[in-house]
Structures are given as C-alpha cells and as structure tokens.
C-alpha cells in the first residue's frame, strides 16, 4: 500500500510503537511452555454450578414425591367423612385399630417391627375405604330403583275428572250403515 503525507507520519508512529513493544516482548519459549503446561494440567472435573443445579433438581423431585404421598394419605379420611351417618361399616374386630395407631400383636407371636404395623394399618384402612365405597354405590343403586318405580306408578290427582260413564259412547264412532234410530242416540238433545 502506497503511503502518502500523514499516512507516513502514522506509519512512523506505529513503527516506533512496534520497536518499543519488541523490547518488552515475552520470550516465545516461555509463553509456549506455559501453554503446554496448562494443556497437560488435569481439568477440574467438579463443576460447581452443575452440581448445585443437579442437587436442587433432586431436592425438588424428592419433595414432590413426598408431598404426593402425603396428599394421598390426607385424602383417605375425607372418604370416611362423607359417608352417610346411617351407614356403619361392618368392621371385623381384627380390623379395628386403636387410637394410637398401633395394632396389638397376637398372643404367642413375635412382636412385629413398627414398619410392618404401619403397613398393616395402611392396608386395612385401604380395604375399609374400598368396602365403604362399594356399599355406598349399592345404596345409591337401590334408591335410584325405588325412585324409578315411584315415578312410573304416579297418577295425577285430577285424573278421575277425565273419566265419565259415557266414555265408551264418546270414544266410539258411528257406522255408515246404522239406522237413524241408532244414530239418534248420538244426538241426545234432539226431540225423540
């Protein structure tokens, strides 16, 4: 590129700058060896942001699972609460659980671990809930049948007013070949 006038001046200034830079130029071998050392250095496998994000995700999943389990448990007493007061579940004595939540161990057997007792309580509660639901359904069906029968046999209170002794006469039609005498019976107001 041909330089003219002030370009030459700028070129001179840049040349001076280049000379100055060259005086403090770091040695290539030092820079290269440092780069090589960095290349050989083992990389940090542990990535802190990634680890934190993973831990948060795991916490969220665990709490969600725990919450959903808790929610299912809290829903079961509500099923019992909506049962009509007249219906009493026929619970066997073995299924009755005392207020403490502990099931008394049968005599002669080994005392069971608390985990199995809790499990048994859960199973019996679920069975009870299922039985209650089935009974409720049967009751509802019977009530519906009763209602259907009642509706089909219902009569209006004024239905008797619509019937009269001359119903047969009113509902029958005169025949074409009938005599006048017989026809007069259809005209009760005419003088006989």
């Amino acid at each position, binding site marked *: 590129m041909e330089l003219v006038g002030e370009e030459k001046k*700028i070129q001179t200034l840049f040349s001076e700058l280049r000379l*100055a*830079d060259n*005086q*403090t130029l*770091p040695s*290539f071998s030092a*820079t290269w060896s440092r*780069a090589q050392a960095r290349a050989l250095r083992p990389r940090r496998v542990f990535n802190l942001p990634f680890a934190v994000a993973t831990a948060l995700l795991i916490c969220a999943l665990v709490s969600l699972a725990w919450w959903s389990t808790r929610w299912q448990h809290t829903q079961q007493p509500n099923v019992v609460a909506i049962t009509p007061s007249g219906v009493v579940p026929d619970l066997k004595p073995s299924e009755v659980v005392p207020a403490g939540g502990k099931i008394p161990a049968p005599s002669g057997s080994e005392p069971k671990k608390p985990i199995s007792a809790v499990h048994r309580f859960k199973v019996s509660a679920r069975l009870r809930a299922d039985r209650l639901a089935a009974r409720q359904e049967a009751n509802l069906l019977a009530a519906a049948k009763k209602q259907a029968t009642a509706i089909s046999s219902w009569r209006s209170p004024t239905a008797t007013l619509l019937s009269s002794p001359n119903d047969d006469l009113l509902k029958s039609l005169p025949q074409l070949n009938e005599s006048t005498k017989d026809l007069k019976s259809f005209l009760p107001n005419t003088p006989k």
Partner: protein
Amino acid sequence: MKIDSMDIAELKAELETLHSASFGWALSCCRRDRGEAEDVLQTVYLKILEGKARFRGEAAFKTWLFAVIRKTAAGEYRRKLLRSLKLITGAEQPDDRASPEVGPLATFENSEVQIRFQSALKSLPARQREALHLVFYEDLSLREAADVMGISIGSARQHYERGKKRLRETLDTAEVAYGISWRRKENPDAV
C-alpha cells in the same frame, strides 16, 4: 499449509516467527495491557495445542492466527468484566499482577509524542483502531485486515479511512493543547 500436514515442531516454528507480530496484535486487542496480552497469547497457544483452534487453510496462517487472537481477547475481556462485576459486590481482592514496568521502554512510552499518539489511539472506536493497527503496525493489506476482523473489505476500508481522519483530528487537537505542531515538523517551511 494445513495443520493436519504440520507436525508440532513445524507449527511451533511458524508461531515463533509470528510471535512478535502476534504480541503486538494482542496488545492492541487488550487496550495495551501487557499482562492481559500475555495471557491472551498463552491462551491462543493453548487453544492451538488442544486443537480447539484449527487452521484449515482457508486463509493465510497469519490472518487466521490474528483472528484467533482477536476472538480470544474479546472473550477474555468479557470474562474480566464479569469478574469486576463480582468484585463490586464482594470484597476487593488485591491485584497480584506486576506493576507497570519502569525502564527504557517506560521512558520511551512516556515520551510526549508517544503518549499523545497512544491516547489518540485509545480514543478511537475499536474497529477503527484495529484497522489502523493491522495496516500500519502489521503491514497487512486491507483485504487481510478485513479477514482478520471478520468484515467485508468495504467496511474495513471505511473503518480505515475514518480512523485515519479521527486520529489526525485528535492529534491536531492534542498538539494545539501542547503547543506543538507536527505539521510544522513535517513541513519546516510552513510558518
């Protein structure tokens, strides 16, 4: 010349030849911060060693190397900004980087003309400064400068022309302020 066909010794020799020019370019990209320029150059060599920066022979080796330096410097600058933002919120950390050198170079750099010239360069927009540096300092053509900067040759020419104009204006203003005229030096006959 492709990196695949180059063995490490050949590559090292090529980089060594361009080391001085690379450092000058790194200095320009790092706003004349020597420590940062050294770090950038080291990172560039590391990238080349690890194969993260690979020369495919699409341009001249020098052009490709300069483009890598430019990108690395930009990345380092961003990282430095982020660190400084963190420092604002946290406790201040002592800067363990070596203090600016004092010696013949410092004496030279502190010479009046160079001080004015460097401050004028710093006042230029980055693109214009880069265009001027690549043409005047590295002796590249405008096409090569455009390749390094990743822009079209038309844009490179515009940056170059505007940079020259602005540099001249800034230097003129500085001269008036200092009471020195480079035009007078250039044309001794002028009154």
